């Protein structure tokens, strides 16, 4: 039974990101994993080893695509070649939904390869929602947009980030990939209460949750994905599960990547938080 209207895949449970250092272990040992999240752009290639690995993974596991370069928030029109290749991959993996970030990262055809924060204005929300709808219509797959971590805010913004996220997803009628670590990181950098964010996004649109580790520096917090998940983020995750119900959850670990077992064990901790919260809220 889905927890909400955008969460038809509640049974997906806890996934982990498919990363190069783990390929050999996964292909040889075939560990039990609920699902793998792949970075779409790493497999939008014409041939060779990446597609061979993907074929082997698809034989054994469920795969969900997560992108890093659609840039719904860029003023530019979509890169058509990018979208065509993405659609080809969507058909290939049969991903039940596709996620990418609520951000921008390119202008005039030049790419920063970063996930840059949006100015939170109504005009930008309209523009971004139109692009999400256009992408969904072209790709023919449900889309969830992920909130990014940020280190800067614009004077031009007219609303909070969570108001902007809500405005965009309501106008686009799409799902949310709620990254609770990103909310925490941004709350530290912009002095807001992360629970205000969690409490005020449309919970019925949350189709997936991300958790990850971050790094604290003297004057700011960075979303580094190179540590285990920290306590404040686990607490936020528990609260998020209370709000949105059982939801497909993924642990991101992208730098200083430890062994597969260590990453998987960290991901499976999410089960404990999820089960406790669901038991507490059961009728």
């Amino acid at each position, binding site marked *: 039974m889905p927890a909400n209207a955008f969460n038809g895949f509640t049974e997906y449970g806890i996934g982990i990101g498919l990363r190069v250092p783990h390929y050999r272990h996964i292909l040889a040992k075939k560990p039990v994993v609920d699902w793998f999240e792949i970075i779409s752009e790493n497999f939008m290639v*014409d041939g*060779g080893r990446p597609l061979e690995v993907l074929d082997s993974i698809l034989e054994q596991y469920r795969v969900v695509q997560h992108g890093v370069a659609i840039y719904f928030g860029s*003023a530019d029109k979509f890169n058509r070649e990018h979208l065509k290749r993405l659609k080809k991959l969507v058909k290939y993996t049969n991903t039940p939904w596709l996620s990418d970030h609520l951000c921008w990262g390119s202008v005039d055809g030049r790419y920063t390869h970063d996930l840059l924060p949006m100015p939170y204005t109504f005009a930008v929300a309209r523009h971004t929602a139109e692009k999400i709808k256009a992408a969904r219509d072209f790709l023919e797959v449900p889309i969830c947009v992920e909130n990014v971590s940020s280190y800067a805010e*614009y004077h031009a913004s007219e609303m909070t980030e969570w108001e902007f996220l809500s405005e965009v997803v309501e106008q686009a009628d799409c799902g949310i990939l709620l990254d609770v670590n990103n909310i925490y990181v941004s709350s530290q950098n912009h002095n807001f209460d992360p629970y205000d964010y969690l409490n005020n996004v449309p919970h019925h649109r949350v189709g997936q949750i991300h958790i990850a580790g971050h790094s604290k520096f003297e004057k700011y917090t960075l979303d580094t994905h190179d540590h285990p998940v920290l306590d404040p983020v686990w607490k936020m995750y528990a609260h998020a599960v209370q709000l949105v119900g059982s939801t497909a959850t993924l642990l991101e670990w*992208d730098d200083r990547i430890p062994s597969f077992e260590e990453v998987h064990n960290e991901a499976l901790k999410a089960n404990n938080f999820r089960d406790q919260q669901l038991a507490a809220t059961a009728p």
Partner: protein
Amino acid sequence: MKRSKPTISEINNSPRPPRKIDSRAELRQLQRVMTGALFRPLTSQWGMQKRWTDGAPMKVLASEFIKPNDRLSSFERLEIYNRQYWFRVLDCLYDDYPGLRAVVGERRFMKLATAYLTKYPSDSYSLRDLGNRLEPFLQEAPHWAAPREELAVDMVRFEWAQVVAFDGPAKPPVTPDDILDIPPSKLLLGLQPYLSLLELNFAVDDFLIAVKKGESEALRGEASNAMDGAPKAAVRRKRVRFPKREKVYLAVHRHDNMLFYKRLDQEAYAILTSLARGDTVEDACVGAVTASERTNVDWSAQIKEWFDGWSALGWFCRKL
């Protein structure tokens, strides 16, 4: 270091951030300013430059569109993104071009890569393509690789060919049935798109093998948008002797999805490049043998051996 004054063109082309963002045009304007700031090279201390392209203080420009907070100024917040951009792209080139790094030296490599990306920012959604214009850049600005300009160009061609061989497209190989009744005088054969044929002035293949020996495979973060440290620091490595000038013909390809490079005889290279140009098998072979200076070669046997080998490797595909 004395700062050079901005040119009139730089002043006229120095975008300023919009005060409000009520339209796509204003969004684009903001994104142009921010991208312009990110793409400006860092200082030698890995910080953001103090002046904008028109000579105005960068802290003034940053304060026009970025809010400060209780710990960081507008300048410092923008600087985080400026640093992340350069750490990410330099790290990527550092990992993907170990041969070029060895040719020009670690410190020089960073300067070369910065100059390259300043002139040719990424035009692809994929970091795979980040080095796709290194060869023209080195042809246009050879001083970045001095005194080993030619070796650097050979190495970049070789390393880009490996990118193509790794995940480039493959077409179905020709089968005996495809060519059964076609005489060599009419037979056209295509070459796999992932196969690159290189005529080089240095044995960069042997050099790169020596360079990579002992180097641990670097791992690159994939989905995090954070880079928490400067690009990889120069590591003291045993210097590999630079290759002497010699003509080398190389095929860079893959087999069973593993990357390989294979030395070719000059005549074999001539045949393959001739086929790639669209010549018939007969014209390609006759042209190569006629141009050869080698004598006492049983060309029929030699050519058969080459074609058997290339067919076994799956290099031939149908010519469209």
